């Protein structure tokens, strides 16, 4: 028999999402992904596996890409979160969003928000000079670097052939 007092543990949480301050009380079991999707009506970040294996939930946490499904919401007090809904500015699509549409870098669209956020984070990592497993002589944007650095973002429709040029074109 279990203890009948097994009630959820609640904590106060404050964080910014796409520039908007949120202060709320959350169950400590809530992932950042479920916070966005089920509590803040930001369903752009997708749940593809809930285990950090597909990348569909990728968002930017304090400017760095992360799998929101592996992040506990309460561990991100004070964080600045950017989701796919926050990429366009003043109604202007982010260049990467435009490139995705023009080059047809998606089909079903379910992995797309994660691909976009991941690519933006990846381009920042490249810009900061972070090496990857395929970097030999300085980190520079190339198809090979994109393939290596984006491999955590799965696309079952198989849009990689269009994703690579979309990221390459808008990142250079």
């Amino acid at each position: 028999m279990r203890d009948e007092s097994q009630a959820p543990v609640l904590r106060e949480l404050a964080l910014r999402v796409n520039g908007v301050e949120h202060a709320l009380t959350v169950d400590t079991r809530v992932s950042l992904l479920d916070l966005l999707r089920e509590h803040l009506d930001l369903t752009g970040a997708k749940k593809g596996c809930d285990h950090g294996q597909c990348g569909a939930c990728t968002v930017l946490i304090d400017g760095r890409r992360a799998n929101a499904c592996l992040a506990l919401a309460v561990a991100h007090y004070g964080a600045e979160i950017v989701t796919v809904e926050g990429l366009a500015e003043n109604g202007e699509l982010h260049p990467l969003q435009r490139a995705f549409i023009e080059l047809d870098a998606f089909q079903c669209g379910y992995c797309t928000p994660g691909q976009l956020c991941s690519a933006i984070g990846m381009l920042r990592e490249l810009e900061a000079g972070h090496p990857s497993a395929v970097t030999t002589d300085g980190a520079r944007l190339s198809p090979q670097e994109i393939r290596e650095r984006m491999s955590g973002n799965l696309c079952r429709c198989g849009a990689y052939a269009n994703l690579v040029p979309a990221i390459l074109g808008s990142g250079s």
Partner: protein
Amino acid sequence: MSVLAERAVGRPLDRVEGEAKATGEALYAFEHPLDRPAYGALVQSTIASGEIRALDASDALRVQGVLAMVSHGNAPRLQAEGELAVLQSPRVCYRGQIVAAVVADTLEAAREAAQLVRVEYAEESPDVVLRDDHPKLYRPEKVNPAFETDTAQGDLDAGLSAAEHVVDAVYETPAFHNNAMEPHATIAVWADGRLTLYDSTQGASSAGRTIAGVFGLDPEHVRVVSPHVGGGFGSKGTPRQHAVVAVIAAMTTGRAVKLAVTRQQMFALTGYRTPTIQRVRLGADGDGRLLAIAHDVVEQTSTVQEFAEQTAVVTRMMYAAPNRRTTHRLVPLNVPTPSWMRAPGECPGMFALESAIDELSVACGIDPIELRARNDPEVDPENGRRFSSRNLVECLRTGAERFGWADRDPAPATRRDGRWLCGTGVAASTYPVYRRPCRALARREADGSYLVRVAAADIGTGARTALTQIAADTLGVPPGDVRVELGDSAFPAAPVAGGSAGTASWGTAVVKACRLLRDGDGETEESVDTRAEIEAAEQLSRHAFGAQFVEVRVDLETGEIRVPRVLGVFAAGTIVNPKTARSQLIGGMTMGLGMALLEESILDRRFGDYLNRDLAGYHLPTYADLDEIDAIWVEEDDPDLNPIGSKGIGEIGIVGTAAAVANAVYHATGRRHRRLPITPAAVLAG
């Protein structure tokens, strides 16, 4: 049509919902906004065969926020058979079957409570391993969807005896899981005797009818809404068990219930491609002309429901030979029910047939393209029907030129680059052209724009965009003046997005409705049904064809296979939108590379479970697995298809790709791999 209007069909328009998808605005099933929804979580069996003896939910019900637990003991009685008869019996037929579900105020509470449901079983010894000498092997009545199980013509043994060259080999494919990126999800809203489902489905109309039947509801009182679907590849073709559970949960609690299958649960609950054991026998004369073809298939089904994949059916139309035979046998096992996965039948069948053709080309010493050309039939070899168009040879020749096949030295294992062995391979591809009855509505709006409604599904195929183009051309207006609405069973009834028949089926109805509107007497709305004309269509052999060319590099030290180059050439009639078509064809080939090299659902032979039931264990192709990959097509003007002149392109891309890879690996290494996937371990084992 206005002489000024540029035709939209044939132009590479961006997806009409592209911006919605790229900004996160597109709503998928689980995402429709609701006031105070409840959440469902499934409990799965931990045995593969037996009976539930006791089910104790007392701990689960104590979790704060839990509203209900449903099981066979308290679920409403359903009018369902097979997999949809969920929570109706204590019987357990496979590991992972749904035995209960918990509904709670929050996702977290539901998930925790589901883990606390204790189930006691009377366990029986499960039977889970497919063998071609299994004592329960049987001959199904038909194979999916309604093909003859077996066919025979001429005298196979005589044909094989007379042959100068014979290939007799067994090819095996493992279970594969569709693994669309969006896990299957349903929101069920039950209010005032009416049911609304926000569902990840490939067919809103048929899903609504099916669910209405299961619950004994008037189909008019069931609405299925699915504007965006995150992939399906066959697995969302019919409602799954979780949708039934979501409805039961909504009826039980009076709350709107959101229920998503987890990625892990998908391996048991949402279908997969059966493993196959395929014996192919080919006999040819000295010139490589086939005298005999036989394709005998063994595959599995569950004990819950029969699914008989039509794996050998493709061999009935692919090549000419006077003596022929195809058979299908099934073994019912304590496994989840297999189902449709991208090109069921053609996909695994053509891995075997096109590998065997390659083996025959080696045996005969004839180039594999020339061998296929020599055996290209004039008419459908089994029924004598005319092909509406058959441009396989043109695909092969066009691809050969583009890929650089002419200089190819057929000798295997002779091209070495350091520790890499290099090779190239080719395989043919085909997929039938189906068309199903459909309804549609076209309306002229007050502002002069047009609305088209059809309960079609856009699961990533670009259906919304293609239908916009088709409607625009029929009406003689720019595509920007047409709004296509789909993904709602409240719209005119449409067939499922399956069998690569979407554009042909829905498009025929859209053309008909738009023509009526265009040519009418000022009516502002027209509704049509295409059943009569589709049922009256001439009986022809209608198929798309293609050829895949693959270059591989095989690392002799690690067994790793890299694929630097893939080219697909297709003959698929009118290409409505070259941008989305290319994406879809490349996507199919990308999935084919996964099938060839990465994907395999590994059965736990003792407990009857798929062991690698997540995306860390089941490897989908990703960025780093791809290099140069392209799809092109040949001009094909086929007037015997539909008003658009199109053939389906959703599935043909995967068909043949795995064989092309395996044939290239043979060319590189001299080793013939007859079992997929060709893993590093398989390469090193030789």
